[in-house]
């Protein structure tokens, strides 16, 4: 909860972050969560803003 | 002596790996670029920065003798991030090395003298370099005595070389383990290095002593040498401090106004006594 608020406050697109509570016994739910997240992220496309950070600021 | 970009390491291949003791290994490294290998020179006592790309660099002395061409060796214990990465390497892997850095043991000045090597634990590698260097020029020196101790029999490094030195008629080898570290078939001494040294009552005239080991060992070895008349300028040691650049720029390894990497690592006890207690 706090971590999501912090990421949102610092400008990270929290649509790209999922929290899920999946026990080891819930195999089906796990598959569903992974596929769902995968589908959503594909729609959003690559996260350019974050990728641009790699070594930005190194002279 | 150094490559164009000062911090660009040579690319080395791990030619041979020897297991010395738990978590302690020796690497034999050869230059992947023959040209660089041929005109690479160093002297006993110098060190280098060994690097694993993506992990970092770490500082060890060059453990092989300058008289042995074509390769360099280093011995390390798996402790931090880079040494753990080193521990994952296998023979044939690549890693980086830059050097040689630091000053050297003045071997030429010791010609015609007796040599007394005193080492403790993992500090044998800087000594091994200068021991082999002396043994390869054996005729220049009078008698050579080696006193080496470790916590337990397993912790003794270079076991096969210790045997080789033990068998040589022209070398007096005394190995010891700390009390309680011996195994049933251990034939060497039992006791701390300073006490074993005291029992040997080493003669001091015309003798150079070289001491390497943990600070506690150095602290108790010096009074013994002093008792038998060794003068501080005839006792050499190497210091170790946290290092990053190895060439006197990054301001980290200084003891007083001296940089251990550039003005050391080899110091005489006279110099050591002037240094503030910052090592």
């Amino acid at each position, binding site marked *: 909860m706090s971590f999501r608020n912090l990421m949102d406050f610092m400008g990270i697109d929290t649509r790209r972050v999922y929290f899920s509570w999946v026990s080891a016994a819930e195999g089906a739910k796990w598959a569903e969560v992974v596929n769902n997240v995968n589908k959503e992220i594909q729609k959003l496309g690559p996260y350019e803003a974050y990728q641009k950070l790699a070594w930005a600021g190194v002279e | 002596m150094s490559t164009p970009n000062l911090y660009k390491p040579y690319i080395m291949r791990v030619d041979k790996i020897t297991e010395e003791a738990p978590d302690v290994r020796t690497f034999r490294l050869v230059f992947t670029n023959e040209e660089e290998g041929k005109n690479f020179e160093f002297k006993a006592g110098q060190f280098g920065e060994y690097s694993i*790309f*993506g*992990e970092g660099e770490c500082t060890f002395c060059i453990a092989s003798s300058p008289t042995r061409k074509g390769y360099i060796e280093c011995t390390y214990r798996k*402790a931090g991030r880079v040494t753990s990465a080193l521990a994952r390497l296998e023979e044939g892997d690549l890693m980086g090395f830059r050097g040689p850095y630091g000053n050297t043991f003045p071997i030429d000045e010791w010609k015609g003298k007796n040599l007394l090597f005193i080492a403790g634990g993992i500090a044998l590698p800087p000594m091994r370099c200068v021991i082999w260097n002396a043994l390869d020029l054996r005729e220049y020196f009078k008698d050579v005595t080696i006193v080496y101790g470790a916590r337990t029999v397993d912790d003794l490094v270079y076991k096969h070389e210790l045997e080789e030195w033990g068998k040589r008629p022209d070398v007096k080898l005394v190995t010891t383990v700390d009390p309680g570290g011996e195994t049933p078939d251990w034939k060497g001494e039992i006791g701390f290095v300073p006490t074993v040294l005291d029992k040997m009552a080493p003669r001091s005239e015309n003798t150079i002593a070289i001491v390497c080991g943990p600070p506690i060992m150095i602290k108790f070895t010096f009074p013994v040498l002093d008792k038998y008349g060794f003068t501080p300028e005839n006792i050499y040691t190497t210091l170790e401090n*946290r290092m*990053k650049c190895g060439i*006197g*720029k990054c301001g980290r*390894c200084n003891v*007083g106004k001296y940089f251990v990497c550039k003005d050391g690592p080899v110091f005489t006890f006279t110099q050591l006594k002037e240094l503030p207690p910052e090592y």
Partner: protein
Amino acid sequence: MTIERKKIKKESLGQWFEKMTAAGNRIMAPKRNKKQVCFETVTSPAEVAFDYVQTTVSAKRAVFPPVEEMLAYKFADKETKLEEKEIKPQPTVVFGIRPCDADAFVTLYEVFSRDYKDDLFLNRWEQTTFIGISCIQADSACFCTSTGGNPGNTKGSDVLLTPLKNGDFLVEVVTEKGKKIVTAAENLFSSADSDIDKESLLAKLPNKFEGKDMKAKINAQFDNEALWSRQSMRCIGCGACAYVCPTCQCFGIEDERFGSKGKRIRCWDSCCFGLFTLHTSGHNPRHTQWQRWRQRLMHKFSYEPDNLGVPGCVGCGRCSRACPTDMNILEHMLEIAEEKA
């Protein structure tokens, strides 16, 4: 090279900036940012702040950046290939540094060029020209006159401007580099009338201690733990003083890897951090804050003058102004100067 005196009108600075930018120079100059004045890349003198005592952070990042790439490499399963990259820094003009900063750049140059030539630094150094501006005002943290400098000192500057009463500038061309950048815009400069009395324009700053004999005095206090503990009890061990300082050049080397590419990076470091000298074995030769504070002052007032013959501190006062707990280096040096041996 004898120093040539010229004059330039304030309004002509704009054209001078254009000439320098046209020659491919990046211009770094002090710019006001709310309460602080910091060095930033500028294009016209309108952006430049003139009415201030000292910037918060020094301009050393022009030649010694906080994060600098040393090596780049690619991972391909077992083979790691070092990228052959020619380091080509952009020509830079650092405009508006104070005489104490210029003095500090000479100290940095000595560190990085003595014995081993650090070409990461020297490549940037050759491409950098320093245009200083003399000080017409000072504050309680300044003490350049005690460390061998003065508000109109030309040492270290390629060109030194001194503000005149009417807003124009006396121009002193100090080095070949300075000559080059002035002759490139020759028409903007007129000859300086001989009656300009530079001394009268400068800030008055009596010297507060004798810099020359500070080395002996501080060496004498090395073992005086009470003095160092008293001075450093309120120090919280951050790196603010080292990172705003124009002469601090300690650095660390870090490796970073993103996927198949990696870099070896040089980054600023500070002797006041607790883990600066920590051995992997856990032994730490300077494990208390007073030992680290002693190291900071000894390095600047004893080791660097001894080893390189240059001042380790140029009296700019930035560390005292930036310190969160009001550590004041001038006050502590005065205390050391008066401490009985």
